[in-house]
């Protein structure tokens, strides 16, 4: 409005502006707020990237997380040689293969266990996603995030998403290790791999939502550890990850049927190991596996987001 107005950038703190500028001009203040990006995805992406960056800049964490599946595969999987077990009882190779196929859906127990281990590493990664909420609360970062307008749901979903991405990469590494150690690759296909990893990703998403939701109010990592131990081993053992459902007692078979982890593993086994020569009744139909896992993921993520609105503001 005034032709003698000093350009903005010259209004530094040391300049005496009173003489050249009308009195109404405010003393130099920081630039005003720019146009904001109010999309919830903006904050979600920033939070997810923060966790992922912390993960991939720390290679030790990745290596340590791979130790457990390697021990399971390399020692447990190799030691439990069901083929020798059966052939020692005098069965011919043809009978041996028949018994293995009708029990495990594959001729090699190691391959059977490998798919279980893919699910196992996802289960453990998901379990610790709750831990990261506890530490964020503990170290104040959660409060910092809560004091910004970022969507409460984005805080929860970012934890779930980062865990999902991490578990996919870790599962990929476990698969590589399994192949190196002797997993049957004769039935691998691009569609099979994509399908199997989609199932595993959804399972990871669902389980992370569960653990993150359980951790929303917690500032105590010991409790969180207890919850992880309480849920993790039952979810693993009461599933088809290590042993086929068929050989379990009837009551346990019912538990396995209610455990969503079983459906992801069931689908992944069909897609990775093939179904040729496998008697019917070993596997669920694929559509059922996908439906159960997708429903499980959608339901638990929805619960997590709704709970975040309630639990994050006290």
């Amino acid at each position, binding site marked *: 409005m005034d032709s003698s107005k000093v350009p903005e950038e010259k209004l530094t703190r040391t300049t005496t502006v009173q003489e050249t500028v009308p009195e109404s001009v405010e003393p*130099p203040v*920081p630039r005003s707020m*720019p146009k904001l990006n109010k999309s919830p995805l903006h904050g979600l992406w*920033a939070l997810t990237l*923060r966790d992922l960056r912390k993960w991939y800049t720390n290679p030790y964490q990745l290596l340590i997380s791979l130790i457990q599946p390697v021990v399971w595969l390399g020692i447990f999987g190799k030691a439990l040689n069901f083929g020798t077990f059966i052939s020692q009882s005098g069965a011919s190779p043809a009978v041996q293969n028949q018994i293995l196929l009708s029990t495990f859906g594959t001729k090699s127990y190691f391959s059977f266990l490998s798919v279980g281990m893919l699910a196992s590493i996802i289960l453990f990664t998901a379990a610790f996603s709750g831990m990261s909420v506890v530490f964020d609360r503990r170290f104040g970062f959660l409060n910092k995030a809560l004091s910004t307008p970022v969507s409460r749901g984005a805080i929860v979903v970012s934890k779930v998403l980062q865990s999902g991405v991490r578990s996919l990469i870790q599962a990929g590494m476990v698969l590589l290790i399994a192949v190196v150690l002797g997993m049957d690759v004769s039935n691998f296909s691009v569609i099979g791999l994509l399908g199997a990893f989609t199932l595993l990703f959804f399972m990871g998403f669902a389980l992370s939502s569960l653990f993150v939701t359980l951790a929303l109010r917690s500032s105590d990592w010991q409790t969180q550890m207890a919850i992880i131990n309480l849920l993790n081993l039952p979810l693993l053992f009461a599933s088809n990850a290590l042993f086929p459902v068929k050989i379990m007692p009837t009551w346990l078979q019912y538990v396995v049927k209610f455990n969503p982890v079983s459906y992801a593993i069931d689908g992944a086994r069909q897609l990775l190991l093939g179904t040729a020569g496998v008697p019917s009744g070993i596997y669920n139909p694929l559509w059922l596996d996908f439906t159960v896992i997708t429903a499980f993921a959608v339901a638990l993520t929805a619960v997590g987001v709704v709970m975040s609105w309630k639990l994050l503001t*006290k």
Partner: protein
Amino acid sequence: MMPNQRDTKPVSKAIVEVEGLTKTYDGKFKAVDGVSFQIEEGEIFGFLGPNGAGKSTTINMLTTLLSPSSGQAVVCGFDVHKHANDVRRNVGIVPQEYTADEDMTGMANILLCADLYGIPRSDSKPHAMELLNLVELQDAANRKVKTYSGGMRRRLELACGLINYPKLLFMDEPTLGLDVQTRAAVWKYIRMLKQEYHMTLFLTTHYLEEADSLCDRIAIIDHGHIIKIGTPTELKDGIGGDVIVVGVADGEVDLSPDIGKLELVKEVKKNGNEYRIKAESGEEASPQIMDLIRSKGLHVTKISLTKPSLDEAYLELTGRTLREEETNRWATMSQRITMARARS
């Protein structure tokens, strides 16, 4: 927004209006009990009280981290309950704890804060550098926060709190656990924000000298209640004047009635050879008292004048000194972590 209040003081208007704010835990324990106050635009307002008095709870309600059990709070023109996101966009927060992510650099931490506000990188990058310059952390911008000292972390928190161009900045115990130099630096920044950026500041502290030297107005809070609000001078004047202690060579003669007759003197107590006198204006009263004693033929052996400190005002108002109060386990632990990290 508030047309009825404009007429009295056209320049300053309330940026925070709190009415009957209460936070009840578990249906019984009232951490904050019916607190009401106003903060004018451009002032430094301090909450002074012991640990567990309700300072942080109040700040957490005003910054939307806690929802009030009852009462109302309007911050920057928005109700904290109904328009939480608008409040969040307009205020900055420097929390009591160190909230920065230790595994990230100082710069990355500020940029992450900016992202959470939805500030585009085209703006937040240059602004973050400006803020790091402001708090003199430009050389450490690309170092991981775990290599920072306590003072540097505190300054980084301050820079993070300013990234969204707040009109109002909340600082919860800004100097907790800091050494003397860093405390002085933080005080310098606080004054600068007020004077040069015309920001309104709300800070909580349990250091009396901090409240005294920084705040335009102080609310003394204890057990969830505001006991008194006023300028530091008003609070100090409230305790009834300066204290003059005069030593006299001969303690036999009692001059108390004569001294008590002086106009400025409010109260006299004789204690052996010493008189302890409360007077309205100590500087003017003490020469008069000396003249009076000499006129009676006695020697003054010593004289001291003490201005009332906020410490005494606090003692007078609450009946106790500021000391560590028993608080809940979590609050205590969190504060210990903060203090331990401040010293690192």
